[in-house]
């Protein structure tokens, strides 16, 4: 195939419209696979026809109509398919498809993408399926790319996607944005999936790479999409702000050799100022929106205090401690308690922080969390108790799975080993 101007035009349209076209085709056809094939055929038809007819005024409407027509043809042609789901579902899909207006407005398309997100994150699907389906169907990543991100074979990921789509079809998982009060429960699940994609990218749990920038970028894209589709939702704004403010620090988090650089040692001039500006504006909007405080917005406010400090000495630790206390009331968790203890160490000193961490351990919480032992080691070192610190770092090392973090811990242990005997 020659790469003529029309290919470039279609390519450009694909990049802009593929997600929306798919979302609408799924609504019209009621079937993921049928919709994907229909979209494929519609874009192929565009390459063939736009050369002579010119690019239509509304390429998106053209593609949806072409895709719907191809699918209806296929439904009519495919006797096996027809006998399998001859019931009202297919009949109504045909009727809906036939009734698709020439130019649906943008709000309808927006709704379709929102519907698709809620379907992909439906609680009747497994957590693995949520992430895989969202990346594949909403973000448009290839199965291969999704498989790579989660360190499974392409075959395994393909099977996971097939199973999830079969469950959606067989169990009758609706292709709908839920109404309140269900909406408020479900949006929480959707945001958890998006944040899960981000954290998997930001702190991959195993392997040699520390950050998977592609996953972070996809999560932020999803956050922006949700912010566009659900404006002035404090949880959405808070999550997007949180991701942007974390991601802004990404260029400074890893050295050229792939080593971890702790926040206090980061070169702050490497932080992405555009993301910071966007994130800070979102935090302010999230916190000033009436309604219950979102834990994401509070976490974003903490991240905002870190990035607002030009030098590490300028960090407003007392306010960070206060925000962690708010967060602990909203969403108690051992990990947040640990972060709170680290913030306390910066305000009241390591002794107070060590007490907090030891009380956390005494309650039998997170004793297998490597960062808890790493924090203990740090507090003990600050208190001039190097031997105990080394023990804590060793416990952390035994639990850490990520290679760059293991290197950092080994370096800390060697630092203590290098001390003169008897210290």
């Amino acid at each position, binding site marked *: 195939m020659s790469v003529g101007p029309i290919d470039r035009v279609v390519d450009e349209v694909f990049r802009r419209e593929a997600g929306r076209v798919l979302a609408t085709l799924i609504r019209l056809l009621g079937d993921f696979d049928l919709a994907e094939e229909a979209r494929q055929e519609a874009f192929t038809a565009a390459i063939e026809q736009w050369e002579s007819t010119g690019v239509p005024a509304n390429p998106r409407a053209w593609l949806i109509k072409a895709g719907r027509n191809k699918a209806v043809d296929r439904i009519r042609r495919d006797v096996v398919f027809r006998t399998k789901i*001859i019931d009202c579902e297919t009949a109504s899909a045909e009727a809906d498809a036939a009734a698709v207006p020439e130019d649906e407005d943008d709000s309808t398309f927006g709704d379709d993408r929102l519907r698709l997100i809620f379907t992909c994150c439906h609680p009747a699907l497994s957590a693995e399926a949520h992430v895989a389906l969202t990346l594949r169907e909403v973000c448009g990543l290839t199965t291969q790319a999704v498989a790579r991100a989660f360190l499974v074979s392409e075959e395994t990921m393909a099977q996971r996607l097939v199973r999830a789509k079969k469950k959606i079809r067989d169990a009758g998982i609706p292709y709908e944005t839920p109404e309140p009060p269900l909406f408020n429960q479900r949006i929480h699940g959707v945001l958890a999936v998006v944040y899960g994609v981000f954290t998997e990218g930001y702190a991959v749990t195993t392997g040699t790479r520390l950050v998977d920038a592609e996953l972070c970028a996809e999560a932020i894209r999803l956050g922006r999409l949700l912010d566009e589709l659900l404006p002035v939702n404090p949880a959405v704004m808070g999550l997007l702000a949180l991701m942007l403010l974390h991601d802004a620090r990404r260029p400074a988090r890893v050295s050229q050799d792939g080593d971890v650089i702790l926040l206090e040692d980061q070169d702050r001039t490497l932080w992405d100022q555009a993301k910071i500006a966007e994130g800070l504006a979102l935090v302010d909007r999230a916190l000033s929106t009436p309604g219950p405080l979102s834990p994401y917005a509070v976490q974003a406010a903490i991240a905002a205090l870190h990035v607002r400090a030009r030098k590490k000495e300028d960090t407003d630790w007392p306010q960070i401690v206060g925000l962690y206390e708010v967060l602990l009331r909203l969403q108690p968790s051992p990990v947040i308690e640990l972060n709170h203890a680290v913030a306390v160490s910066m305000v009241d000193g390591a002794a107070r922080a060590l007490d907090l961490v030891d009380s956390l351990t005494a309650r039998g919480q997170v004793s297998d969390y490597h960062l808890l032992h790493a924090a203990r080691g740090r507090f003990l070192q600050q208190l001039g108790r190097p031997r105990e610190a080394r023990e804590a770092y060793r416990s952390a090392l035994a639990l850490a799975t990520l290679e760059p973090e293991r290197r950092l811990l080994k370096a800390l242990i060697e630092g203590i080993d290098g001390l003169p005997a008897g210290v």
Partner: protein
Amino acid sequence: MQYLLLIYSNEAEMAARTASAVASMTAEYTEFTKGIIQAGHFKAADRLRPTSAATTVRVRNGQVAVTDGPFAETREQLGGYYQVEAKNLDEATAIAARIPGAKYGSIEVRPIWPVEA
């Protein structure tokens, strides 16, 4: 679509309930059933005798084996079902959540797979 809502609960705990607890639960079930009949969701429902009354049949190599008890020992046992009409899984799970037994046991929601003619 039609769904079967399978009601699982711990038979021993159910059997140990006081008479007044049984009476109030029966009243709740009656009210729930009336509600879904009125709303047009109801297709069928039954309660089941406990698994102490269960018999399991297997045919292996042409031999019929009849044994006492349920097919598997589980912590919660199937005690009854509703067959309902619902527009999708969300509606079916919303109905399932209103079954009185959902507060004590678990409701498994299974789509009916119609047999093609």
